[in-house]
């Protein structure tokens, strides 16, 4: 793997954004030119993006085959010896994809906030700080480091929503952004409290925070062993709940989702892009990286009253999210909230994929069902990770376009638009394209991952998959509703003298998203083999 002046690439990816953030923030007082600050942030983030692309292709060039050790550890040094936490960075095929996504979306978010004038330097610095947090989560191979960066992402996002969020609607004294940011913070923070406890419990009892090590050691802590005088299975259940709630809030899994429409709706454009594009993936990534391999037995625990195990419950909640998310999006009158609810809908597919993964992994691990359908699980897992990547692209694109509209019209009400396609043909065409990518049109990215998930979950959760189709149907409903309200119908003459067309910066930001959506839809194997190799290796190991 490439290194920069002797520092390994992952460390650079983690720290360079934070240093860039410091530099941009410092520029604010040194050189007052906002334009210089913007260009500095853009150029630095582009360099980081290039490095993340390099890391992605380096991992690909490593030519790992199914069965090889999927982790490439680039850095492992003493860090917090007292508790046994080490500074370990590394990636496998799954995190490489997520790092690529993070690296790509940040400069686009900076471009999307090009016309923000209010404390521009600080705004950009927070975006870069957020990138450090996400990179850290995806590169962390130590549970403590993981937790640290996981929490770090909250801070810049809170301020982005709280300070640069939407303006109050006419007739309302306070903007919704204060409520939204507080709700977001408390939801997320409350969720991670349990996670902190769980992290400590695990690290303390296993004596190490190394994620690959814990994956081997922690699940084999068996009943009968007592920890602090409590039975191990109870400790495990507690730790599981800590992680489960934290990540479920983040994904979000129904009914932990009500922070999301508020936060997405009120956040500034760049904030929404990163929130939907990257932050939601932290939760799903946490499930795949930690909750499934660390707690295989807990996933099979029967939940009292309901009569299904935890994995199935998770699948049920995901399907509820798919269906209700689609209905809720359909019922919105606010364009950003509509897009926000579409995330609940799309991430539900990630959820059902995770459930299949968990169910199969746990059945193999515990030996409850040695003949579990590994092939379907691998397909579902491929789809899940690809869906995370795809949703990152399409939701970022949708929020960029919704933000572009809001910025020009200062309204998010769908009823205030109408017939805009006449005045903004390019914006209309791009909105159509992105909407159809989001809808899962075959030939574009979303379809490939949704098909893989549907195929993968069909054998495990047949009826639930069929119900999820209802959500897919209504995905069409809300997408068409949004398109109709914005583009179709007679032109609303209120915007007769408003320039509604995309700005140059917005166009440049959309271009790579469009190219990737098309590329992934036409030829998914540019990215899928990396995911597939890692996922297949995990399952082959657990099956043997």
């Amino acid at each position, binding site marked *: 793997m490439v290194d920069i002046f002797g520092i390994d690439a992952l460390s650079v990816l983690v720290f360079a954004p934070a240093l860039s953030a410091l530099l941009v923030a410092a520029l604010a007082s040194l050189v007052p030119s906002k334009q210089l600050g913007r260009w500095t942030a853009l150029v630095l983030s582009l360099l980081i993006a290039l490095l993340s692309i390099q890391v992605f292709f380096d991992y690909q060039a490593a030519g790992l085959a199914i069965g090889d050790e999927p982790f490439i550890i680039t850095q492992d040094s003493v860090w917090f010896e007292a508790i046994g936490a080490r500074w370990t960075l590394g990636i496998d095929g799954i995190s490489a994809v997520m790092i690529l996504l993070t690296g790509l979306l940040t400069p686009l978010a900076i471009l999307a906030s090009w016309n923000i004038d209010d404390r521009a330097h600080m705004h950009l610095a927070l975006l870069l700080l957020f990138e450090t947090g996400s990179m850290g989560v995806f590169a962390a191979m130590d549970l403590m480091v993981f937790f640290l960066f996981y929490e770090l992402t909250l801070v810049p996002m809170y301020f982005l929503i709280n300070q640069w969020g939407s303006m109050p609607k006419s007739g309302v004294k306070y903007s919704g952004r204060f409520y939204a940011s507080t709700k977001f913070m408390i939801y997320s923070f*409350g969720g991670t409290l349990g996670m902190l406890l769980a992290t400590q419990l695990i690290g303390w009892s296993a004596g190490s925070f190394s994620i690959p090590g814990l994956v081997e050691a922690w699940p084999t802590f068996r009943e009968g062993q007592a920890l602090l005088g409590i039975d191990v299975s109870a400790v495990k259940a507690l730790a599981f709940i800590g992680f489960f709630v934290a990540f479920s809030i983040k994904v979000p899994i129904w*009914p932990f989702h009500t922070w999301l429409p508020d936060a997405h709706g009120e956040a500034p454009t760049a904030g929404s892009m990163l929130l939907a594009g990257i932050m939601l993936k932290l939760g799903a990534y946490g499930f795949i990286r930690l909750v499934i391999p660390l707690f295989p037995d807990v996933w099979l625990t029967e939940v009292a009253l309901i009569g299904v195990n935890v994995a199935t419950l998770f699948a049920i909640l995901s399907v509820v999210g798919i269906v209700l998310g689609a209905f809720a*999006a*359909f*019922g*919105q009158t606010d364009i950003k909230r509509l897009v926000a609810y579409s995330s609940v809908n799309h991430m539900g597919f990630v959820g059902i994929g995770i459930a299949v993964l968990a169910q199969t992994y746990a059945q193999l691990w515990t030996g409850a069902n040695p003949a579990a359908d590994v092939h379907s699980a691998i*397909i579902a897992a491929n789809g899940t990770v690809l869906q995370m990547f795809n949703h990152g692209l399409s939701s970022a694109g949708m929020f960029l376009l919704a933000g572009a509209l809001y910025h020009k019209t200062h309204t998010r009400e769908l009823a205030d638009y109408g017939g805009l396609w006449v005045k903004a043909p390019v914006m209309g065409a791009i909105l159509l394209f992105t909407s159809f990518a989001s809808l899962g049109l075959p030939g574009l990215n979303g379809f490939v991952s949704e098909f893989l998930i*549907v195929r993968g979950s069909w054998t495990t959760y047949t009826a639930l998959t069929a119900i999820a189709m209802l959500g897919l149907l209504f995905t069409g409903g809300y997408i068409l509703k949004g398109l109709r309200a914005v583009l179709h119908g007679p032109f609303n003459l209120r915007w*007769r003298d408003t320039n509604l067309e995309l700005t140059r910066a917005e166009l440049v930001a959309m271009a790579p998203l469009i190219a990737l959506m098309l590329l992934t839809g036409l030829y998914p194997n540019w990215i899928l083999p990396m995911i597939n190799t890692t996922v297949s290796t995990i399952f082959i190991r657990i099956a043997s």
Partner: protein
Amino acid sequence: MDFLNDPNALPWLIPAGPLLAFLIITLLTNKSKLVPASDHHEYGGHHPDYDGMLVPVVARYSRVISIGVGLCGVLAALVISWMTLYNASQLHHIGQEVLASSIAWMDTGETAFMMGVLVDPATVIMLVMVPIAVLMIFIYSIGYMAHDPRQARFFALISLFAGAMLTLVVADNVLLLFVGWEIMGVCSYMLIGFWFEKESAYKAAIKAFTTTRIADVVMLLGIAYLYSLTGTLNYRDIMYNPETLDMLATTAPIIFGGWTVSAASIIGIFLIIGTVGKSAQFPLHVWLPDAMEGPTPVSAMIHAAAMVSAGIFSLIRLYPLFAAGGDPHHGVLTEPLAFMAVVGAFTALLAATMAVAQNDVKAVLAYSTISQLGFMMAALGIGAYIAAAFHLITHAFFKALLFMAAGSVIHGMEHGEHHVHEHAHDHSSLHPDGGFDPQDMRNMGGLRKTMPVTFWTFLIGGLSLSGFPIITAGFWSKDEILADAWLGVQNYGSGAHGMVFTLLALAAFMTAFYTMRQIALTFGGEARTEAAKHANLGKGVVSITMTLPLIILAFFAIGAGFVGVPDDFPVLNAIFSPEYNAFHHLTVEALPMSEATAAFSSLPDYHAKAPPFNIIPVATSILVALLGLWLGWLVYWRKPLKAGQRDPMENFLGPLHPVLQNRYYLDEIYGRVFVAPSQWLSAQIISFLDRGIIDALLHIIARLFTWLGDLVKVLNLWLIDGVGDGIPIAIFNFGGWLRRMQSGRVQQYMLLILAAAVAIGIVLVLSSGAALAQ
């Protein structure tokens, strides 16, 4: 991959031309000139006025690029199709041998999903029809869209449409078929809503997309299920592979276990539902008549060459799966076959009854399309595989012809209306909103005099649709369906075959009648309005590009039938089928070989012989066609409708007429039963579930903790007061100030989520403890 010299790889390039054309037109023509919206010379027609606003109108160079590039794309597709057809003809035994090529497209564990192209007999027949029909539609569009301000967008979309259709045709697997299928769905959405300012247009677009999507999600499940059972979606590996077919026909299904059906039947029905949506069969047919809102070339594209044909084509592709486990040629139908027979035959008749009462020139054709697709679906249901494929091809030609001729009529009527107003110096009512409907047949009449080419070509298309004996293509394909149905009745007393025969014969009679009614109302008698009197296509490019395709298609509307004359048909067999029935001989090779299927008791012999010549079905199809045409002639041509006169059908049908005209009120029923409740539900989910329950619960707990906090505060106050110290008071004041700074919710939410986590934790701990204790 050497695309040009490798016959196996060449089919990849067939859809490439139109797809590239779409890309190039989209990228090159997005700069428009801005003109005032009130400039009726540049901007108008179907577009509304905007007071004092500048609107984009396609630049002149964009018009040239879009037409040139679009035509090049289609021509490339046509040439490469012909090259491929030649390559296919060089195969020793097409069917057993095919042209195929594929790449690893999507990794799935240690295997990969292969994406590729395939040319087998089913592809061949489509490659004959689709590129020609598409090229005609393109040429016609040059004239039809000549004055539209968004002409470039139109050509881009219609190129994408053509590219998607060709992708679907050359696909070697169900997934790529689905890709082309859905892209066509989106194209039709955008083209139906092409004049997107009109409420009726965008509503029709949304309706088309949503209705077909209902079917598509079910089809997607079918594809996923098929994929999970077979591990592949390749046609050759499934449909041409008796072992796989046998496995599917003998496997119990994963759902509906209590119902004694095979997995093949469940998958089959799921896949057929996809076609019910796409090919507009009852109960999902409602989108198609509304799809007439788009420009007329789009109607031709949707109803003839592409979209609805794609539905039937997919059934033809997947037919071996549907028939697996049954033997339709011996009267044993599987569930999917029976489903197709019932839905198809019912739809054929239902749509024909609705067509009788329509006054819109395009609506009649729309219902006739639904009806004819029903013919094909019913034919497949009774195992008349070849007949269905045959009817698909002939129908595509004559229906494209009819739509474009109807488009010419509308264009001519608009021209006539324009003419009338020019002379009246009345510019205010230039727009169709003025009350004049150029599509209403009651406003027409006598057009045979002013638009003779359109009249003669329309007549040929109409006769072919009616199945006029011997000389038209429609007769031969329809006759073959009836012959197959009759064979089942005669030899095995099959009820399904009998039902199909009866309903289709009735539908064919009504088809001939409403077609004659349409011809008579449009072209017969004398002009009923001033616009009709002056209706014509003018002179020049518009007129040429709009009539040339009609003439070429008229040739196919007659000639296409002669490739499939039964080889035992009296007299004519010597001329057209001296050795064998060419169409039958070719198409049957798409099905698995008899020798291969003979070893499996679950599979029928797919290579059944064509039904022997029988006078009863032939006489029936001749009789119903002539009777219908004669009746139509009697009522409408001999005594032409006068201006303002009531349609004789209204008197004849009485109270039934409004029911038929309003499509049995199905749209209203669907609106009440499906649309309104889902809108209500989505409103409830936000206000009731998310805000009313989840958030309200959070807020209630938050308030509870605020109250507790206040209680503690009061206690503290009392304690502090008791101590009576100044410093605590200062601290308290500071705290109070701090409290005002915050919204106060931070602690509340934190406590709330802790409480929730603890509650869930207790449940999980208790349950896991209970589970582990066992």
